[in-house]
């Protein structure tokens, strides 16, 4: 019989755990209490022992993924006959109405219709008591008090206006307060997808970035014609070394050069000490679409790597993200992020900072567009770069000057090579 092992709350009130490493794989036999997985929470890293002896049927969260408490972490077939007990549901049933006999005691209270469940009504105990005495349902009253509080006057006024006895109030007056899609949408018109896993992580970090950082975005056009030619010339040599050369490694190099000159952008805010931490190392995050959504992989020490090396590393990280084998080091510790949509790069964007970093640039598509050079309209390979900076920690000037430097390096690749280590 399939046994669902739900992610336990292994601290006091932790909500999720990161899978550090599985010690078993699907198909493995496990004994009772055998350690099967190492899980890290914000409090501790611990090994979880198997609650059943049997066979690992399905592992739902891979190494590096976050499993929320209460989700099925792993399914174990304990070999017991399924008939002995109904199979455990894949997701915990949400509703358990537990009937309770009304308290014996002083019998004065008649429970009428509590299924007309309502949003919590704010009222003082004295007001509640009055409503009780007058037989008025608090939820039926239009509140006039502070923060939507029902006052004693509201209760009296409602009564004076000839309100019906509570038993008659079959329709929940405050239902509109909660969005009830079933009342609006026809069956099948909507699909409800739980916000969890990678999507939830992305949601949390994006909301934090946007709500915390003061985003300022600046866009510049870059003439890539020279670099297009350089790349064409370098392609055969790259191919010899097994490197498929694209523009991203050049942009990484130009960014590192720019960051050395504008250190306020290679930084983060330590919120606990209220200190701006300027980093003297250059771990460049590459934001790209992964199989489960946005993934930022990190090219470590980009300042010490060659163009070929960076190219290979970006490829390796891309593969690792796709295969789900990316390590913690591959995905964390960046100091500055480059967001790349590849060939679909668009015209401009307002990139969201990879919090708590200070800046991010968005790379857009290179296309031949008309440009004016020496009074003549000529076709040039043009590309836009968008930079968003956290205006709390750096100024628009810093971001603009940095981007101007990056632009200058990309437009004249020889200058870029002058600065290479």
């Amino acid at each position, binding site marked *: 019989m399939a046994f*669902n*092992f*739900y*992610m*336990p*709350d*292994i*601290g*006091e009130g932790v909500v999720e755990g990161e899978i550090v490493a599985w010690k078993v794989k699907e198909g493995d036999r496990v004994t009772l*209490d055998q350690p099967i997985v190492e899980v890290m929470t914000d*409090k*501790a*890293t*611990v*090994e*979880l*022992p198997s*609650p059943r002896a049997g066979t690992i049927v399905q592992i739902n969260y891979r190494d590096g993924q976050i499993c929320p408490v*209460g989700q099925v972490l792993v399914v174990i077939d304990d070999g017991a006959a399924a008939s002995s007990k109904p199979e*455990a*549901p894949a997701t*915990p*049933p*949400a*509703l*358990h*109405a*537990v*009937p*309770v*006999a*009304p*308290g014996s*005691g*002083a019998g*004065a*209270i008649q*429970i009428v219709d*509590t*299924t007309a*469940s309502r949003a919590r009504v704010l009222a003082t*105990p004295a007001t*509640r*008591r009055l409503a*009780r005495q007058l037989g008025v349902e608090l939820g039926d009253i239009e509140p006039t008090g502070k923060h939507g509080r029902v006052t004693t006057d509201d209760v009296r006024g409602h009564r004076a206006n000839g309100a019906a006895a509570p038993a008659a109030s079959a329709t929940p007056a405050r239902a509109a307060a909660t969005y009830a899609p079933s009342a609006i949408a026809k069956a099948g018109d909507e699909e409800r997808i739980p916000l969890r896993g990678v999507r939830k992580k992305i949601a949390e970090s994006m909301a934090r970035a946007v709500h915390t950082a003061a985003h300022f975005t600046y866009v510049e056009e870059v003439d890539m014609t020279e670099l297009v030619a350089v790349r064409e010339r370098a392609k055969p040599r790259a191919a010899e070394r097994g490197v498929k050369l694209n523009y991203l490694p050049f942009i990484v190099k130009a960014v590192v050069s720019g960051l050395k000159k504008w250190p306020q952008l290679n930084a983060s805010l330590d919120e606990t000490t209220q200190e701006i931490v300027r980093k003297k190392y250059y771990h460049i995050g590459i934001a790209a679409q992964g199989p489960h959504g946005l993934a930022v992989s990190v090219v470590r020490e980009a300042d010490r790597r060659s163009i070929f090396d960076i190219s290979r590393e970006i490829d390796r990280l891309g593969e690792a993200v796709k295969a789900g084998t990316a390590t913690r080091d591959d995905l964390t510790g960046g100091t500055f992020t480059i967001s790349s949509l590849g060939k679909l790069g668009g015209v401009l964007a307002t990139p969201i900072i990879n919090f708590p970093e200070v800046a991010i640039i968005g790379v857009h598509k290179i296309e031949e567009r008309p440009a004016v050079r020496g009074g003549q309209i000529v076709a040039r390979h043009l590309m836009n770069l968008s930079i968003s900076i956290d205006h709390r920690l750096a100024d628009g000037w810093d971001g603009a000057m940095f981007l101007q430097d990056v632009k200058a390096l990309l437009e004249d690749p020889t200058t870029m090579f002058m600065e290479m280590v």
Partner: protein
Amino acid sequence: MEAYFELDDEAKARGLFQLVREDGTAVDEAALSGLDRTLARRLFEGMVRIRVTDARMMALQRQGRIGFYGEATGQEAAVVGSAAASEPQDWIVPALREAGVGLFRGMTLDSYLAQIFGNAEDSTKGRQLPCHPCDRAHHYVVMSSCVSTQIPHAVGIAMAMKIAGDRDKVCFGFMGDGGTSEGDFHVALNFAGVSKAPCILICQNNQWAISTPGTVQTAAASIALKGIGYGLEALRADGNDVLAVHRVVKYAADKARRGDGATFVELVTYRVSAHSSSDDPSRYRDEAVTELWKDKRDPIRRLETYLVGRGWLAAGEREALAHQMEAEVRDAIARQEAIAPPALETLIEDVYEEPTWLQREQLAELAAAPRTRAPHQH
């Protein structure tokens, strides 16, 4: 009477009383010649039971079947040695790691587990964090989560015993090393000294107050020394030598029963486990030190070696004993885990003699509302 008890106050509080060395040999054969074989056996069994139970409960916590657990693993000698010096009429006021005292005095595994699961058989109706058992029949008071608040309670109970003229009763109050930095500790010791109440205040110094090491807990050379300032006789023993623990606590208990007042006891041990299931000590301490305590200084192995040497225990007997106890614990778990949570109505009990209309209304609303249950309860 060993020479240790004849030392002056300060020498006792700075010293370390030991009967069996780390390697399981007797410090002084003569001091152990009168050891009762049945008592030795009970001490051994009590320690093994704690170790087995703790291991099972930690596994249950990691499987999401209980919410929390705090182990006494590695401190079994301090727990069981103290428990064995108590008599049924005595009262126990514990801290976090003394559930083994309750079990030694007769609290059943089932009632211990009922509290941990917080089920309908839990005498505290599922309202406390796990590891807060209480057992009126065996005079085992529920622990207080607030560090040190229990020490004045223990002294107060002892003062009440004295006022009531209960000559033969003793109150045992436990604390950890962290507790000795709290104001309540000092208030309690002062009253214990002045009132000459029949109590034993026992500090299990496991050298870690969650992440605070003993080195920054106090500037005193030993915790026991603090007792002297309050006029208390203060003893200090090797907390991993169960026979030494029993000897000093028994000395203090006999003294209290004679009407000769309170004693402060420091038992030096080591917290080889995490503070609790929510803690990860590798973040803040050198686990190489822990390994030393787990291995060479293990209290169970020390008594085992001594008893085997004396011919009171056969090689391999410990494994058989642990096996049998583990089966008992598993059976008790199976029974207690199957018991439903306390009825919803119990939520509004015990505050007023009769629940108020407001409480009943809230209960009715709660009962009618949709609810989820923890997944493991399916």
